[in-house]
């Protein structure tokens, strides 16, 4: 007999309700796919059903999904993946030799020569070796150990895995994790899920979203009152802000991490997306090692990369990796155990990653086409970054920092007090009100800045620069016009 029956209580209602579900999960929000996107999807359905709207399509500029916005996949990558999926095509003369060579090599490394087989949990060994070589080449020869490479299901998976290892303690000893504001909401969501303490450090909007060590210090000292800060997360190039940190800044952060005994997590998924003059991507690993053994032998770090961004944009494949530096060997053993629980990262994603780190070389048949396509994608993004900054800055009430890198713009919008009041009365963030109106009136889906974090009293939105150039120009114009209307309406 159940307890309830014994107690004579009639049990109606669900076993699993909001009141008795995991309370941490209730704190998990992911603005990039939150309520505004749900409404966007609803509107798309309505359009399909023939409902009349002031627009004919919803432009989803909310998520960094390149292919969904028309970016073409890189031919070479898809040829090799097709060959891996259906190896009979290796007999097909349409496919170039260098693609076939790589497909054969990948298939040889797979169980039963099939990408359908489980791989080792840490990822296929020869791919990890290729990743290590790629890192060495990128970082001017600084050595990389394949055993410190963990392939993952997108970078998100690796990031959450490391956070899992780091979170412990109760009450005032609970692990605190420093993350930039604005931030990519995977971090806040993961921290909420794990019940870790989120420690915000503010990027400086007036200095092109630059990072200042004094702000890191302030944030850390304040946090020490109520938790045990152990981790510092940094996204470079930044999401949503797009800033590319200077070498000096990276050194400062590493020094700070060492002094304050923090584990560094460097999210570098946009490392190929650098557009602004005078900006250059410096990997945290490279800078760390160039700072000498006092740092390179001691600072514990994990760097993350992915196949979802850069010139590939292959978000759906869920390819990624992390490189761990100076991790305690006993903890590493635990990490290996942890990743084994979910068996292995998707093998097509691993195969794709292998091609990214092992692209066609100058003496290979696919090189010319590959470089042409790659250059075209990156050049288009650079152009769109510039256009975006220019057009937004012509609008009174919109201020836009240069989009130095990544795939987004995060302009600041001035909202009339009446709009702010209306939003508050409706228990809504003012920038959410703004974005919802934009969606309803123009069919453009953006993410309100409140989803990423921002200084109190400021408002922003995040827009991707992914739509094709001509469409992007139209989107920019529509947003500009909307902003003026909105400001008028609420003045």
């Amino acid at each position, binding site marked *: 007999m159940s307890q309830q029956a014994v107690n004579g209580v009639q049990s109606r209602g669900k076993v699993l309700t909001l009141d008795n579900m995991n309370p941490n999960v209730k704190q998990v929000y992911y603005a990039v796919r939150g309520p505004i996107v749900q409404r966007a999807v609803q509107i798309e359905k309505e359009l399909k059903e023939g409902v009349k709207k002031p627009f004919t399509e919803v432009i989803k500029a909310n998520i960094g999904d390149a292919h969904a916005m028309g970016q073409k996949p890189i031919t070479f990558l898809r040829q090799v993946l097709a060959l891996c999926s259906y190896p009979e095509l290796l007999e097909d003369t349409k496919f170039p030799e260098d693609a076939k060579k790589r497909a054969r090599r990948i298939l040889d490394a797979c169980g039963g020569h099939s990408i359908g087989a*489980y791989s080792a949990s840490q990822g296929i060994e020869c791919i990890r070796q290729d990743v290590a070589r790629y890192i060495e080449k990128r970082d001017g020869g600084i050595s990389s150990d394949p055993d410190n490479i963990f392939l993952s299901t997108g970078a998100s998976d690796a990031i959450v895995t490391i956070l899992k290892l780091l979170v412990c303690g109760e009450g005032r000893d609970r692990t605190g994790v420093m993350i930039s504001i604005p931030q990519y909401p995977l971090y806040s969501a993961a921290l909420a899920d794990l019940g870790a303490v989120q420690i915000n450090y503010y990027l400086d909007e007036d200095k092109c979203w630059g990072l200042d060590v004094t702000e890191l210090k302030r944030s850390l000292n304040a946090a020490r009152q109520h938790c045990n800060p152990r981790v510092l997360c940094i996204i470079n190039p930044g999401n949503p802000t797009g800033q590319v940190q200077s070498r000096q800044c990276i050194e400062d952060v590493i020094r700070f991490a060492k002094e304050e005994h923090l584990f560094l997590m460097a999210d570098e998924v946009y490392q190929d997306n650098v557009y602004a003059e005078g900006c250059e991507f410096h990997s945290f690993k490279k800078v760390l090692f160039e700072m000498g053994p006092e740092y390179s032998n001691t600072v514990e770090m994990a760097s993350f990369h992915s196949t979802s961004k850069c010139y590939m944009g292959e978000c759906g494949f869920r390819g990624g990796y992390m490189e761990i530096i100076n991790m305690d060997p006993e903890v590493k053993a635990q990490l290996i155990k942890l990743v084994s*629980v979910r068996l292995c990262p998707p093998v097509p994603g691993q195969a794709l990653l292998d091609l990214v780190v092992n692209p066609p070389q100058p003496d290979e048949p696919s090189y010319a086409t590959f470089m042409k396509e790659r250059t075209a994608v990156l050049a288009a993004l650079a152009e769109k970054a510039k256009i975006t900054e220019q057009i937004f800055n012509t609008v009174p009430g919109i201020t836009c920092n240069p989009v130095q890198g990544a795939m987004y713009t995060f302009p600041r919008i001035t909202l009339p007090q009446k709009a702010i009041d209306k939003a508050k009365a409706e228990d809504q963030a003012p920038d959410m009100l703004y974005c919802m109106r934009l969606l309803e009136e123009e069919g453009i889906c953006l993410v309100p800045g409140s989803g990423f974090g921002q200084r109190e009293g400021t408002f922003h939105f995040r827009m991707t620069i992914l739509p094709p150039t001509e469409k992007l120009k139209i989107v920019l114009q529509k947003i500009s016009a909307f902003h003026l209307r909105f400001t008028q309406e609420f003045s």
Partner: protein
Amino acid sequence: MKPVSFVRQVLAVCLYPELLKDNQLPLDVRQRAQRLLQACDGDSVGEDWKKVVVKLLAGVEGEIQTGVLTPTPGPHTLPKLLDECGVTMVPYQLMEDQGWALDLDDLHRALMVARGHCNPRAIYISNPGNPTGHVQDRKSIEEVIQFAAAERLLLLVDEVYQESVHGQGREFISYKKVLFEMGKEYSETVEMVSFHSVSSASFGECGLRAGYMEVVNMDPEVMHYVETLLCTNICAPVTGQLALDLMANPPKPGDSSYDTYTQELVLIRTTLSQNARRAQEFLNDLPGMSCQSAMGGIYLYPRLHLPSEIIEQAKKSEVEPDVLYCQRLLEGEGVLVGAGCQYGEKTGKHHLRLCTLVPPDTLDEVLARLGSFHLRLMSGTTSA
């Protein structure tokens, strides 16, 4: 085992749409790929479906932990997964001498004991069973549903091997179907999540990492959080989702690929069924080994009746006897099988888990080597 041609052809075309023009590929392959490419903006299910649901059940840290009843023996990744989510495992024992059937009495016992130290809120079922290969009959399924309803437990039903049923006279019936055939009193109240995957179906596409879950009677407010949690995984790999669609939507009679597809699937299924039978007979005949017939799934789970010397040696080496057995088998014969203690056995009984979804020649080789090793061990001629 070979991948299913239709699946891989469609995947290849989806990956490299240039192949849409390739006349050497069957028409239905190209048409299906075209449709899928057009649809590639669909809804998604995260691959970590088990984790998502288990997470929701987890309680507040520090307070009394949520418990989930889990089968013993059961999937070996389950304990770690529950532990990761901060949830207590409450094992219930399956009945080996009845083909690994569920024991309702033991479910009650486990629940009673559990209530002393945690808050049991869900029951995990593996049907067909991993590693046991047991396929529940309708009566058993009804009993479990009634139990879950009476004791207010969420049903987590792992049905990933539903397409691998080969036992005589046994058929897979889904928990959902039984639930709905039990009338409104149950079908409108019992909360359930059932799972399936492309890893374990006749497709065997483990590397693609895709599956689905169907949620029944979940509180809509809680559903919102299922979606939120899945969001942070972004989506299941698209190649996996495509394979899933093909699994749910195979070629029909009249389609160009139908014949080849059907032949390949029949071959996989007959191989599995013949392998399971052949292996079970062979293993059961070995002295010191007994093996229940598997009705479904892709494993056999024979029991080892080990001589006391081996048990002693295992104690000295501080490993479980079945682990010692597996280590020696690996070293001596180059055959890797699973040790029963990984699947939750703590009763002092020892087992092996052997995969039967392999080409027949491979199975013969495995059985020959295993048999030879086992006989040597039992006659005391294997070195310590």
